[in-house]
């Protein structure tokens, strides 16, 4: 099964969804018992960050209560335990991404830091004056600005592959932009503002034909799709722990071992060296070369617990459940007079963005909030996407594994209320 076109139309996925017991999983998330202005919380802002299950909260607490010590440097038992938990989590991430080797997994603060790391190391050594970095018109600011900084410094150019009115990438145009000066392609697997799933495997093949490596921003893909970096054959892949039910402040950079080994270090400090004298410092092996200083150990352990949790439920079952929600929400919201969907790609995951005739998203967000419904309003850190559609902002409802059809019905009622108050 292709990892990027997973949808309920595929027979396997549909069966998975039947097995998925949403009421049962809801009990795993303590925050879902919160009441907002006296109403049950309806959390539809999962693309911004997801809620945390007890398993993750407990893993972090357990670490601080029982195992807290610095890693890779103590002879004492506690340090050994902490190191082991940390490295076990790295192995869990490897398996989650289907990477070949745990050495290819670098812990960073999040998708943003992963992209900046590549821009500052691989980018600074491979991109020179007159060279080009190719991104797309649907990128999050975190996959735009690091490249602008790099291009500015090097006298290089940022090229942007366009999208159509549905919010789908124009592959022919993208192919035409892959030129002799292109040094890197950086692209989201799933767009946070539009929900579009990009055909990464095809794009990687296209870029590799021109010997251009590809960085994939998986921040919005990892919550919904099973990812196989070897099948995608991407060179770098980044994602954030907090969007897959793990803690904030921890994320992952995957890089093919040969590329990581050839790259200069990112930050200098402890743990990233094997020996230091004032004359010469020898860097540690990958991935440690890129993990300077005491890392977010509790975060890594929490991320490992989040991956265990996802795998226990089954990422395909989760994806199928969310796909059903997205399709149901699309159908219901689209049917409301005066609503226009932004992002109607044929392959989508996770997010439903919309605008309403003469009612600003911010007003919609405030009224929905009073109903206990948390949505995101604004430009979603993707101002170029807003400009492309000629709008200042959208309302975005984004779905997680614990959302239900009833919650979508409440969203629809909420939108009706918006029309009643502001219409």
């Amino acid at each position, binding site marked *: 099964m292709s990892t990027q076109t997973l949808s309920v139309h595929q027979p396997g996925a549909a069966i998975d969804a039947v097995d998925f017991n949403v009421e049962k999983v809801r009990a795993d998330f303590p925050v879902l018992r919160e009441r907002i202005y006296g109403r049950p919380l309806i959390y539809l802002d999962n693309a911004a960050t997801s809620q945390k299950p007890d398993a993750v909260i407990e893993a972090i607490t357990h670490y601080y209560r029982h195992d807290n010590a610095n890693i890779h440097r103590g002879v004492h038992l506690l340090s050994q335990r902490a190191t082991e938990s940390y490295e076990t989590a790295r192995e869990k991430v490897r398996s989650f991404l289907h990477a070949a080797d745990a050495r290819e997994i670098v812990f960073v603060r999040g998708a943003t830091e992963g992209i900046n790391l590549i821009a500052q190391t691989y980018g600074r050594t491979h991109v020179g004056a007159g060279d080009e970095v190719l991104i797309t018109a649907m990128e999050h600011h975190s996959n735009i600005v690091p490249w602008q900084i790099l291009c500015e410094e090097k006298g290089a150019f940022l090229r942007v592959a366009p999208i159509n009115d549905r919010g789908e990438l124009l592959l022919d145009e993208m192919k035409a932009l892959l030129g002799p000066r292109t040094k890197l392609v950086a692209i989201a697997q799933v767009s946070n503002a539009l929900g579009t799933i990009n055909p990464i495997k095809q794009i990687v093949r296209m870029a590799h034909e021109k010997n251009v490596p590809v960085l994939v921003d998986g921040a919005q893909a990892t919550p919904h799709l099973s990812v196989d970096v070897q099948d995608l054959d991407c060179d770098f892949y980044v994602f954030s722990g907090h969007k897959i039910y793990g803690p904030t402040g921890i994320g992952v950079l995957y890089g093919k071992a040969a590329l990581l080994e050839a790259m200069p270090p990112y930050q200098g400090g402890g743990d990233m060296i094997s020996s230091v004298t004032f004359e010469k410092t020898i860097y540690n092996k990958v991935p440690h070369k890129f993990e300077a200083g005491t890392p977010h150990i509790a975060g890594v352990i929490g991320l490992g617990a989040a991956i265990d949790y996802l795998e226990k439920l089954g990422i395909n079952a989760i994806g199928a459940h969310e796909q059903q929600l997205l399709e149901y929400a699309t159908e219901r919201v689209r049917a409301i007079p005066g609503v226009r969907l932004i992002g109607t790609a044929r392959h989508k995951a996770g997010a439903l963005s919309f605008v309403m005739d003469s009612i600003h998203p*911010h*007003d919609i967000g405030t009224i929905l909030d009073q109903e206990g419904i948390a949505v995101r309003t604004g430009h979603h850190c993707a*101002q170029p996407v807003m400009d492309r559609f000629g709008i*200042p902002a959208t309302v975005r409802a984004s779905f997680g594994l614990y959302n239900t059809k009833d919650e979508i019905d409440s969203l629809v009622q909420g939108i009706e209320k918006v029309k009643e*108050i*502001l219409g």
Partner: protein
Amino acid sequence: MADLRDMYQEVILEHAKAPRNYRALETPDRKAEGFNPLCGDRCTIYLMMQGDVIDDISFQGSGCAISRASASMMTQSLKGKTTREAEELFQNFHNMVTGRNHHDQEAQMGKLAALAGVSAFPTRVKCATLAWHTLQAALHDEREGERKGEREPITTE
């Protein structure tokens, strides 16, 4: 629900739908652009001064009901005011929408008092004050001299 109706009063919705002084001045003495990065709202304020007195004021931009209504009402309340009076009014307005006013002060705010309901919605204060922050930048625009209109937009962040 009572709170929502407090904020989205009839008069506010009416201003939002048909804002007053919504146009560009062709040869403004002063001009400034404001931007609320949180919601993408934009606002441009145009001023014609007669000495220290605001002779004409207008605005343009895109934004939510609160920011449009606030800009519209602001332009209405500032015509004929001195720079100093305008800044005092901003201070009072700011106190009002952040819930720091006494009720007797609200009584002196005239029509602007309709926006008092915003104080129950802390996330919306910046919507209500965008036009005012932009106004302040425009009032100080004079000192910018040659670079008039070329500054980065001021932001509410």
